[in-house]
């Protein structure tokens, strides 16, 4: 098949051995690449009960099937493993320049198992794959490490590098993996897995060509999409302070169909931080550790996080590989962060996690927290949520000044927020208790603190309130990687136009009352299922969520896949592949003994008790019924969440033995 490289590389860090393994075309047909290929391989290769931080866990870096084919918005790389944070399937993905580099080395995925005897880096270049000593890099932050490695190859092609910071070295369960000097595959605790293997960095410098069956068609799609994006330019007079109007429109009691291509103009201007104001107004932004509202963090506060104030520091835009939107940016942070001149523009998730969630309106604190996380490797979503948890514990007397080392952990205390985050990055004092996220911290603190520990299945949720978008709550609760905000949501689905290509996906083309989204109906469940299947396809292809939110009528991912691979399969077949990947990720959890019923989000996130004020006052989400419906419409048991035998058979997935049991080879890779 075209578009793929046809091989993966297995690396045994303990034995210091390498093995190239061919992957048959049938496996790509069944799972595509990226996340799908990873799920197929890891389901088979990680034994049940494996210690996530032990040698049996496998850390898989995989490239999207469409990466490098001439398609656009398809430059994301996936990292997958058993998550030490949730105990089940773990994955995270990231843009940057790492995805094409994996393929240019000749592989679709690189699999690391075992534990190195000392710190190492993995290098792949014209000399082939090898491990090199990394004692001199161990203990350095992720950005310093990448800069030091870039200096080793000053001439010729710049290598693509993935690194970890000190938080991952110290096995913080909320640490991620960086590339491009601070862009993160942050979720699921993937950094801790890399740290546990003593793998400090992966350095790729290949030049293999990436094939494409029909480059003319692929580029025609790219040109047409790019022409549409190019025309999305907001008037200069439309300032950040007007974004609350957009927020109000998105939060109306009636949901109005929109063309998602408009979002390209917003992202080009500000990036994701446009939602600092829009989300504050309509309730999308959780506030005060999911216990507050604009009554606690009103316009006087949230307007201090106006995206125009961030953009005023922007020195240049940052695009991930093959991205024609360019939502990223590099900010001049001179005078804000000692010794640092440039820093990646914070994402909305970061700004909210260290902003509204902690009732902090100080922009410079957000910049500092962003940089601390990017250097140490902490996931900003999880770290911000854990800081908010600590503040709520402190405010309610569960933590004292003695516990905090003298920090006054009150809502909005900017200095204390920064100081606590630094302690977490270094695992010192209270920071050591908090460095593994809210669930573990609550166990350590005790005293009933779990009532303030916001998470789903151990993972802190993204900064989008499920009481505003219940479909987001279903993803938080029922996705095999719980707590993720990038899987499915009404706000994504309604602009996706997936129903144009997939008849079974419910159409969202008419005005409807927002209240419908709060009902546990088959239609809402089918929207969640379709959204999740589509997201699996995108993650298998290396696609970007923001391309999805411009709509697949513009970003023609199914046509891309047909043209790039040369396999004329059509949208419905790819969505079936998405269903297979999602079901296999769920099977992974069952195999690892993770009961799907235990990943339901914190009850506060479902409006139990409901908020007393703000735009979401009184809102509750029937999350139990919605998750049950989602499982049923996926072909999984509506009570247990375990995929049903008939579903496995229909999807040609591994058979079951006992609860789920032993499996046959899923990916078609040869045994080592």
């Amino acid at each position, binding site marked *: 098949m075209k578009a793929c490289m046809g091989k993966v590389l297995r690396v045994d860090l303990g034995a210091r051995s390498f093995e190239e393994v061919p992957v048959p075309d049938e496996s790509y047909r069944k799972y595509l690449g990226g996340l799908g290929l990873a799920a197929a391989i890891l389901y088979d290769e990680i034994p049940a009960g494996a210690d996530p931080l032990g040698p049996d866990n496998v850390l898989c870096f995989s490239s999207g099937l469409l990466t490098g084919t001439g398609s656009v918005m398809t430059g994301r790389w996936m990292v997958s493993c058993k998550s030490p944070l949730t105990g089940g399937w773990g994955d995270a993905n990231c843009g940057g320049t790492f995805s094409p580099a994996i393929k240019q080395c000749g592989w679709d995925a690189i699999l690391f198992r075992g534990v190195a005897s000392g710190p190492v880096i993995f290098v792949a270049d014209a000399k082939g794959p090898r491990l090199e000593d990394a004692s001199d890099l161990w203990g350095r932050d992720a950005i310093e490490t990448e800069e030091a490695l870039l200096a080793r190859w000053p001439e010729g092609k710049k290598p693509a590098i993935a690194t970890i910071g000190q938080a991952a070295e110290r096995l913080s369960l909320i640490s991620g993996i960086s590339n491009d000097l601070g862009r993160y595959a942050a979720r699921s605790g993937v950094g801790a897995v890399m740290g546990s293997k003593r793998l400090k960095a992966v350095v790729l410098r290949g030049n293999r060509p990436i094939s494409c069956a029909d480059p003319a068609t692929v580029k025609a799609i790219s040109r047409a999409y790019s022409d549409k994006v190019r025309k999305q330019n907001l008037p200069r007079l439309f300032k950040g302070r007007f974004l609350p109007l957009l927020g109000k429109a998105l939060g109306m009691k009636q949901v109005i169909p929109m063309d998602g291509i408009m979002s390209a103009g917003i992202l080009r201007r500000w990036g994701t931080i446009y939602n600092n104001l829009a989300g504050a107004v309509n309730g999308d932004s959780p506030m005060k550790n999911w216990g507050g509202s604009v009554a606690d963090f009103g316009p006087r506060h949230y307007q201090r996080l106006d995206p125009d104030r961030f953009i005023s520091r922007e020195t240049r835009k940052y695009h991930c590989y*093959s991205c024609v939107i360019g939502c990223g940016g590099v900010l001049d942070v001179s005078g804000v962060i000692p010794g640092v001149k440039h820093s990646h523009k914070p994402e909305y998730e970061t700004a909210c996690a260290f902003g509204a969630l902690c009732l902090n309106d100080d922009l410079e604190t957000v910049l500092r927290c962003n940089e601390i996380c990017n250097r140490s490797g902490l996931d900003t979503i999880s770290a911000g949520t854990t800081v908010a948890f600590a503040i709520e514990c402190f405010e309610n007397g569960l933590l004292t000044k003695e516990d905090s080392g003298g920090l006054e952990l009150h809502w909005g205390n900017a200095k204390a927020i920064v100081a606590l985050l630094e302690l977490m990055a270094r695992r010192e004092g209270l920071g050591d208790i908090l460095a593994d996220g809210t669930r573990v911290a609550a166990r350590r603190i005790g005293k009933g603190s779990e009532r303030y520990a916001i998470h789903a299945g151990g993972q802190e949720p993204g900064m989008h309130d499920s009481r505003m978008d219940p479909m987001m709550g279903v993803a938080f609760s029922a996705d095999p990687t719980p707590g993720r905000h990038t899987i499915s949501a009404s706000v994504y689905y309604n602009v996706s136009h997936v129903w144009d290509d997939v008849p079974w996906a419910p159409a969202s083309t008419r005005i409807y009352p927002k209240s419908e989204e709060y009902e546990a109906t088959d239609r809402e469940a089918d929207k969640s299922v379709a959204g999740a299947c589509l997201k699996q396809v995108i993650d298998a292809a290396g696609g970007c969520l923001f391309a999805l939110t411009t709509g697949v009528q513009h970003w023609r991912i199914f046509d891309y896949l047909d043209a790039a691979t040369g396999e004329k399969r059509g949208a419905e077949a790819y969505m079936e592949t998405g269903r297979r990947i999602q079901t296999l990720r769920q099977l992974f959890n069952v195999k690892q003994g993770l009961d799907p019923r235990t990943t339901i989000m914190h009850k506060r996130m479902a409006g139990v008790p409901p908020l007393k004020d703000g735009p979401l006052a009184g809102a509750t989400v029937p999350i139990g019924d919605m998750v049950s419906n989602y499982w049923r419409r996926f072909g999984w048991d509506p009570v247990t969440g375990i995929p049903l035998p008939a579903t496995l058979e229909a999807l040609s997935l591994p058979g079951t033995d006992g609860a789920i049991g032993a499996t046959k080879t899923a990916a078609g890779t040869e045994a080592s």
Partner: protein
Amino acid sequence: MPEKKKPVVDYVRCMACGACVPACPAGCIALTRQGLDRYRNAFPELGTPGSCTGCGLCARACPVECIAMAEA
């Protein structure tokens, strides 16, 4: 002997997506050209022209076909 061809970027069509950068085996293209639009985008340009072999892989990689190989 004919001049070696070099990449010429049409900055009206270029989307600054960077797909040309890793395609260059010699690493001679970089996203360094600014001041061409209101978004502070950094567009590709030949940073080390002497290293360019004229292989055309950057042009082949460009998703929107905005790079032409022309005699310098």
